[in-house]
């Protein structure tokens, strides 16, 4: 069965510091991978996605993620965090083809200290 693991439930960083949020997946082939961000009381906004090709993908708001097949990982990074980045971050995957179902990780809550 496919699954997504986000090992960190809660991360706190200082404004201006770098950020890395971890995501590992379990699937027998290369899945489609996504990072979404959710501010309190809001819907999910797509940050970036990986389907194939270049393993380093750029997203909105200065975020990037790197797909590493050997580690079954798709970690999200940002070189300098802003206070407005405080939110919940969800990693998700689907197996492509006719599969419709997004499998989500449990999310990582990011707190940004001034």
């Amino acid at each position, binding site marked *: 069965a496919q699954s997504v693991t986000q090992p960190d439930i809660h991360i706190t960083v200082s404004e201006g510091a770098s950020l890395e949020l971890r995501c590992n997946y379990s699937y027998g082939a290369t899945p489609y991978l996504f990072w979404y961000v959710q501010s309190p*009381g809001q819907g*999910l906004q*797509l940050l970036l996605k990986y389907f194939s090709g270049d393993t380093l993908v750029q997203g909105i708001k200065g975020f990037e993620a790197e797909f590493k097949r050997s580690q079954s990982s798709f970690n999200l990074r940002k070189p300098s965090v802003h206070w407005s980045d405080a939110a919940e971050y969800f990693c998700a995957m689907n197996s492509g*083809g*006719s*599969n419709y179902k*997004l499998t989500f990780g*449990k*999310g990582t809550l990011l707190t940004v200290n001034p």
Partner: protein
Amino acid sequence: DAMVIQNPRYQVTQFGKPVTLSCSQTLNHNVMYWYQQKSSQAPKLLFHYYDKDFNNEADTPDNFQSRRPNTSFCFLDIRSPGLGDAAMYLCATSRDPEETQYFGPGTRLLVL
């Protein structure tokens, strides 16, 4: 801008009183999804429409129904809301099932 719209953003209902949540999209996507998200949890898929074909998740309670009268609109009906149905309800769309899902802002449901 093309987008996914949900109305209302906040809905208060009484225990057992039917309630309908609305979702519309201007993306002309073929697939529309409804998710339930409880506090501090990941979204949970309830069902989806691929064009007019309705697909229910196996563990979605019978209390939850959906209608899609046309491409642009999809409704979530909760026939007899219980206290446990209080949650954020998210609508999403995608052009095809394997493609990126785009989410609306959600409707926060409170059951009194």
